[in-house]
């Protein structure tokens, strides 16, 4: 039962990594989109493609958190206490990202759009970094089974730095390949090319960091290393293959397939991490069986999720389809036009 709940939670992690990750990555590209005039069409594309969906995608994070503390309360407590600093930083990043994005949309003058836009973009860079660093701390066994571990070393260490860097790169890669596809769909060839070339560069960079990361894990996160090179090896190989394939597809401008391959690469690596770490919840400290909540609660969670999924999955898919077809657009009728006067 605990495994089933954990599996559901991990599904949430995966969906957050893919969709939430792409939203964060879009913020990174917003940051790198160039000066106001030149970057305007790219920023408009970013705004249109994440606007309708980012709040729904964000709920996956909440889903993961509540599943973690309800299903595995004894893991959540030391995790949250030890990761006080990066969690606070990620939380602030989440606040600034969401509000910066929403605020910018209502702004009509360039300096203010720039201010809120910069807030949105910079926090899109920081949040995945800290979330990745937390993952690195868990995977390298730096969280005790009770109380709080070292508040700094737990997330400022080789594995965490690797995790944070990879998170930022992966988000950017996903976003660039998503945005290239969105641009191509809307007939914005120039923007599609802009994102395509950046996706390829970041993709290669991500691969390079991941490969050199192996050495880091070997010396700093032995359990994870052994898992990744043992039980999880097929998933790691799948991720590498899918990542390479997505680069090739981007190169030949087959954007939709490239995007699918990029998603597959991320999914495989997320599950590879899970497989490598199994059966540890907190590596070298707490195993699943010791950290899970009561059986009655786990059962109730699965029941609620099953019933709830019937309610929210169809509309969620509908939202995604509408967004994918480009049928959702910001309200045009009552748009403020103060800036032009």
């Amino acid at each position, binding site marked *: 039962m605990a495994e089933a709940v954990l599996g559901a939670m991990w599904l949430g992690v995966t969906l957050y990594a893919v969709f939430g990750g792409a939203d964060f990555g879009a913020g990174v590209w917003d940051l790198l989109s160039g000066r106001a005039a030149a970057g305007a069409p790219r920023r408009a594309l970013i705004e249109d493609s994440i606007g309708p969906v980012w709040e729904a995608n964000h709920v996956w994070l909440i889903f993961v958190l509540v599943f973690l503390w309800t299903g595995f309360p004894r893991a*959540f407590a030391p995790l949250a206490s030890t990761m006080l600093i990066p969690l606070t930083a990620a939380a602030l990043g989440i606040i600034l990202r969401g509000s910066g994005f929403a*605020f910018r*949309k209502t702004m009509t003058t360039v300096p203010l759009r720039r201010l809120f836009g910069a807030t949105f973009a910079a926090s899109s860079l920081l949040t995945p970094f800290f979330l990745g660093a937390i993952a690195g701390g868990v995977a390298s066994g730096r969280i005790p089974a009770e109380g709080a571990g070292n508040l700094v070393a737990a997330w400022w260490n080789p594995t965490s730095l690797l995790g944070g860097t990879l998170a930022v790169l992966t988000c950017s890669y996903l976003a660039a390949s998503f945005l290239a596809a969105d641009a191509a769909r809307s007939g914005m060839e120039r923007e599609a090319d802009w994102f395509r070339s950046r996706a390829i560069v970041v993709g290669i960079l991500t691969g390079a960091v991941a490969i050199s990361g192996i050495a880091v894990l070997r010396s700093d996160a032995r359990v994870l290393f052994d898992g990744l090179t043992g039980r999880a090896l097929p998933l790691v190989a799948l991720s590498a293959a899918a990542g390479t394939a997505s680069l090739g597809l981007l190169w030949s401008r087959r954007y939709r397939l490239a995007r699918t391959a990029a998603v597959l690469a991320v999914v495989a690596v997320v599950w590879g991490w899970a497989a490598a770490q199994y059966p540890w919840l907190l590596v070298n400290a707490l195993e699943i069986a010791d950290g899970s909540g009561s059986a009655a609660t786990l059962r109730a969670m699965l029941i*609620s999720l099953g019933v709830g999924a019937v309610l929210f999955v169809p509309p969620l898919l509908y939202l995604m389809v509408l967004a994918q077809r480009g049928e959702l657009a910001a309200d045009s009728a009552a748009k403020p036009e103060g800036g032009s006067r």
Partner: protein
Amino acid sequence: MVGVLLANAASAGDLLAARQQMALSLGWHIVVACFGVAFPIFILLAEWRGTRGDRDAAELARRWSKAFAVLFAVGAVSGTILSFELGMLWPGMVAAFGDVWGLAFAIEGVAFFLEAIFLGIYLYGWDRFPPKAHLLVGLPIPIAGAASAWIVVTANAWMNHPTGFDAATYSATGRVIDVDPWAAMFNPATPVQATHMILAALMVGGFVVASVYAWGWLRGRRARRDRLGFTIAFLVALAATPAQIVVGDWAARFAAEHQPIKFASLEAVYRTEAHVPLRIGGWVSGEQVRWAVAIPGGLSWLATRDADAVITGLDSVPADERPPTAIVRSAFQAMVGIGFLLLFAGVWFLLAWWRRRSPPRSTWFWRLAWAAGPLAVIALQAGWAVTEVGRQPWIVYGLMRVDEAVTTAPGIRVGFWVVTAVYAVLTVATVFVLSGLGRSLRSADLGAADG
């Protein structure tokens, strides 16, 4: 177990900082969350009138939805922080009881999804759907909003009225066994607290939105659309107010029965006595209420409907189990006083409407309507102060103290100041953005009138 806790307990300063950080972020979130419950109702009412040919109402719906988009975004992110903080600041409570009260949050996730999904479709679908269908797409938003308010309050109600596990074993050994998450979720304190909360959300949302228009009215903005905006929001709030007072009375009687010390604290009953008077106004000083109007037997009657009933006083528990009574009582008085003042504003409006089918003309009414928004927010905060401070020193009533639950990590004070600074900036930015939005929409109006 206890030894371990004491060995690395948090300092008093860190405990205070953790409580203040929690109070600040909850107090911030709750105001915005009220709009999540109430605002979509106003928007849909306006849009519905719009589909029946009222163009002012249709325009109002579109404009309001822009403001709501901003509020929803800050509501969602400020709520996320709370989920982090439960673990960062109160690991003791999460580790011991996470699987008891957590289910409510797991279910709430569904409501969050529905709210966020339909809001995305609604806000970005004005041009995609025909008017009636668009209205329909909006309908799940307030329903999910109220549902999420209801579900999250179950968690708080559980802290006041812990059920769903073997409390005797926990008191004796510190072990949590026989967990029944459904029983925890359906704890008996939920119906009254959740109803009170949802009504409060309608009042806060309604009075605040109306307050913006009342301010405009005082400054001469009295177009038909402005009047319509005022009326929709004010009517919803006005309808909620009398119901709120009735439910408030229920809440007080429920507390008298199940949390007698909290009740004693909110009425400053120091000694257990019969025929306790109701004291209105005044303040607490040295275990006495000074300068209050006393109605003999009033409190006994309110709590039990028997003027001679015995009320449990604070003297029935050791001093370190009593909440800070001066704070709790003044918060309670503020909430109740504001409740009746807002009722008065509503009656005024209704009388004018009944006499001549239009809102009151007196400037004093509009000043009161303008103040009603901030007052409703104060009542909301005061109510939460009553609930949360009145529960002290317990985090889980009668079972776990706050100092057993708080994190042992050092430096909580630093975090508190960082969070305070961020919330201060966020508050200023939100107000700035919303008023800027109003201004640019109005200047668009002027442009339209010129051209």
